[in-house]
């Protein structure tokens, strides 16, 4: 088969409208960033809380944390997207469900960010739990012996150390968020993968389209990586973690 290359395709107008294909890709990048960043924020907040709960001395609370992680880890993300988008509104009180289905602004975006955020929170929780587990027991005991309450010990002694330890694994989770945000195309978020499919059909220049989108995903992942490295350097406490490199 012969392929007709056309690198100028990005400047051309789409079939039904005034915009160019480049405009589509820029819109796509915007939604990818919006979904990923919102989801990451949510994932950090919930993930740290759930990860800390899983190390709690109370068994029922720890069990609740485990259930949370297993629930989100054992259902494919695509199915979770469908669950949040189609199923959850059915379980809301009737007027809420109707509002969500008909009037909610940026419904696709909100659903995708919520879904990806909860999904990633389970993975963040696992890392945070491992980080807390890697601290010497003496840290918690010493904090309690000093008269701190358990929540205070977590807030001032355990979490500040554990979070610094888990920055490297969290970095790869952050990069995963950008990759996983691609699944939001399935519920109609107009992010990069959605635009890639749309542009491929509209322009029939599939290879150029996918190359451009692949490059944009690379840039997202690379930026996320550098950003986390910057945070790691900024928050480093000299002598706390032995550097292996």
């Amino acid at each position: 088969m012969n392929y007709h290359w056309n690198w100028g395709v990005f400047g051309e107008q789409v079939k039904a409208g005034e915009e160019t294909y480049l405009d589509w890709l820029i819109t796509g990048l915007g939604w990818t960033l919006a979904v990923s960043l919102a989801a990451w924020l949510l994932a950090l907040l919930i993930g740290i809380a759930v990860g800390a709960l899983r190390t709690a001395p109370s068994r029922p609370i720890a069990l609740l944390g485990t259930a949370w992680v297993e629930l989100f880890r054992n259902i494919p993300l695509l199915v979770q997207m469908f669950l949040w988008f189609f199923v959850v509104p059915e379980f809301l009180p009737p007027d809420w469900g109707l509002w969500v289905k008909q009037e909610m602004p940026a419904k696709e975006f909100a659903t995708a960010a919520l879904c990806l955020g909860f999904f990633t929170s389970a993975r963040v929780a696992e890392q945070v739990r491992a980080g807390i587990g890697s601290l010497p027991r003496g840290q918690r005991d010493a904090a309690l012996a000093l008269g701190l309450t358990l929540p205070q010990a977590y807030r001032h002694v355990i979490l500040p150390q554990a979070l610094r330890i888990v920055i490297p694994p969290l970095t790869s989770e952050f990069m995963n968020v950008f990759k996983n945000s691609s699944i939001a195309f399935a519920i109609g978020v107009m992010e990069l993968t959605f635009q890639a499919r749309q542009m491929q059909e509209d322009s029939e220049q599939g290879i150029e389209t996918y190359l451009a989108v692949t490059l944009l995903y690379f840039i997202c992942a690379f930026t996320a990586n550098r950003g986390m490295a910057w945070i790691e350097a900024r928050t480093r406490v000299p002598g706390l973690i032995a550097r292996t490199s």
Partner: protein
Amino acid sequence: MGEFDFTVWGPSLPFIRDGLLFTLRLTLIAMSGGIFFGTLLALARLSPFKPLSLAAGAYVDTMRSIPLVLVILWFFLVIPFITGTPVGAETSAIITFTAFEAAFYCEIMRSGIQSVPRGQVWAAQALGLTQAQTMIHVVLPQALRNMLPVLLTQTIVLFQDTSLVYAIGAKDMLKAADVVGKNYNRPVEMIVLSALIYFAICFSLSLAVRQLQKRVAIVR
């Protein structure tokens, strides 16, 4: 709260079964192919011949930094140019997942190979085994065994990821649920059913892997 009618689950079962069979077939082929090619890639990455290790490294890093959905779309687009004829979504999915998972299994096998003590290699060489014999009879069996739980965990991830063939319309379990949901106008019930099936399979597999992990750890 909406009205639910879960009786649709009954007539949907034959379709779900066919879809599930494809999902399982895809998972098993991609797993065995992925472990085979992944091991070759790992050997290439560890090779002292620089161009080979660099090429393998570039392949693995590229696959690992692109979203899987995009990889699926890429292969679906490019394979017909290579073979010269259009291929079905199912064939395309099998090729894609084998190639994609090889990159992930490669990293697992690489750390598995590196986890085998150097003394094993020296002992094999002292016994007069050739380099290839050392790999096949001494290093790889131990690497595979050490990494068995991790390989299986990756396979559970693979099993879940196969749902993404939705992007090219291959007929897996999720697609079957989707079609039945549309035909009977019961999409919500069918999404719930597929979520339950995925959860039941993945959760029991991950429990089994945890048991296995304990056994492997004790024997070692």
